[in-house]
């Protein structure tokens, strides 16, 4: 229930911000229906809002979605979808459906949790992004309402629950610095891809001597360190 409310509110924010960034209502709904990964959708409109090219926007969205491949592998081992269900399962493979599924202990409950969370959030997310997009379409100048500030807050809100370790914080800091340095040097949108290269290099070449579970792996329960906080599900969002 709290996940449903959180998803609804999160969807409204995405819809309104997407329209403010210059996408049409139809384009906004297309992202929610077909892309269906909150973090990637926010990345796409974030690049567009900053004056970046659609190519850079698609690149940022694709890179941010890479963790979903790791989720898919874990879920495949848990729920073994067959035939067409495999394609349906792939589409609803997101942070929340993984978390709901891995939060159960019985295999039958893991399956049920995955499908209920995945399909339920899919319906809510699409309904509420449409609502947000229609509302955003009718309010006029987005800057007057501080919607550019809302976008900043949304990205920080997506990042925050992932900063569980010192190393995660260090990666975030280095990539933030790389972005600031790159902004004057390359066209809008590309600083984000520069930061992605830096982040990828840290992950690829970084020390692997540390203990497991440094908080970097994407394949952990996003809600693990946020027990009992009713808002925590919303902060993780459909990312």
């Amino acid at each position: 229930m709290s996940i449903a409310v959180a998803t609804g509110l999160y969807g409204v924010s995405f819809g309104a911000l997407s329209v403010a960034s210059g996408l049409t209502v139809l384009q906004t709904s297309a992202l929610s229906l077909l892309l269906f990964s909150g973090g990637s959708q926010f990345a796409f409109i974030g690049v567009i809002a900053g004056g970046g090219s659609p190519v850079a926007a698609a690149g940022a969205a694709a890179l941010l979605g890479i963790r979903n491949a790791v989720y898919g592998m874990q879920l495949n081992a848990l729920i073994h979808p067959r035939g067409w269900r495999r394609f349906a399962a792939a589409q609803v493979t997101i942070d929340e459906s993984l978390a709901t599924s891995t939060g159960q202990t019985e295999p039958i409950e893991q399956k049920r949790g995955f499908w209920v969370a995945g399909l339920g959030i899919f319906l809510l997310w699409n309904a509420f992004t449409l609502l947000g997009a229609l509302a955003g379409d009718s309010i006029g100048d987005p800057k007057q309402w501080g919607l550019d500030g809302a976008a900043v807050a949304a990205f920080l809100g997506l990042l925050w629950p992932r900063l569980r370790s010192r190393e995660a914080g260090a990666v975030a800091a280095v990539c933030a610095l790389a972005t600031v340095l790159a902004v004057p040097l390359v066209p809008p949108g590309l600083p984000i891809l520069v930061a992605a290269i830096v982040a990828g290099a840290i992950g690829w070449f970084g020390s692997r001597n540390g203990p497991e579970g440094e908080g970097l792996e994407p394949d952990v329960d996003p809600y693990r360190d946020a027990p009992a906080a009713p808002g925590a599900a919303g902060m993780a969002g459909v990312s």
Partner: protein
Amino acid sequence: MSLWFWILVACVLAFLTKLLGYLVPRKWLTNPRIARVAGTLTIGLLASLTVANTVAAGQALSLDSRVGALVAAAIALWLRAPFLVVVIAGAAAAAGLRMLGLP
């Protein structure tokens, strides 16, 4: 039309990425190095998007009302506010500072 094209490209790439997890041999993605890269990419991109949306104005750096939005959002997150409250705090801070005359 170009925007539509790249929207659809992003959608196709996102779906294929998800599907990949269901199709490739398990050992590929259990490689700790791949898992690490997926993790650092997620964190790095979100940090970069946060900063770019705060200080970038085209190719210039600009400190304006959006910095206030960042601070307000951080305070809200610190207080464990739900996502929408965080977003509204950011919007209210930016709109408020702009009303006070900041760019």
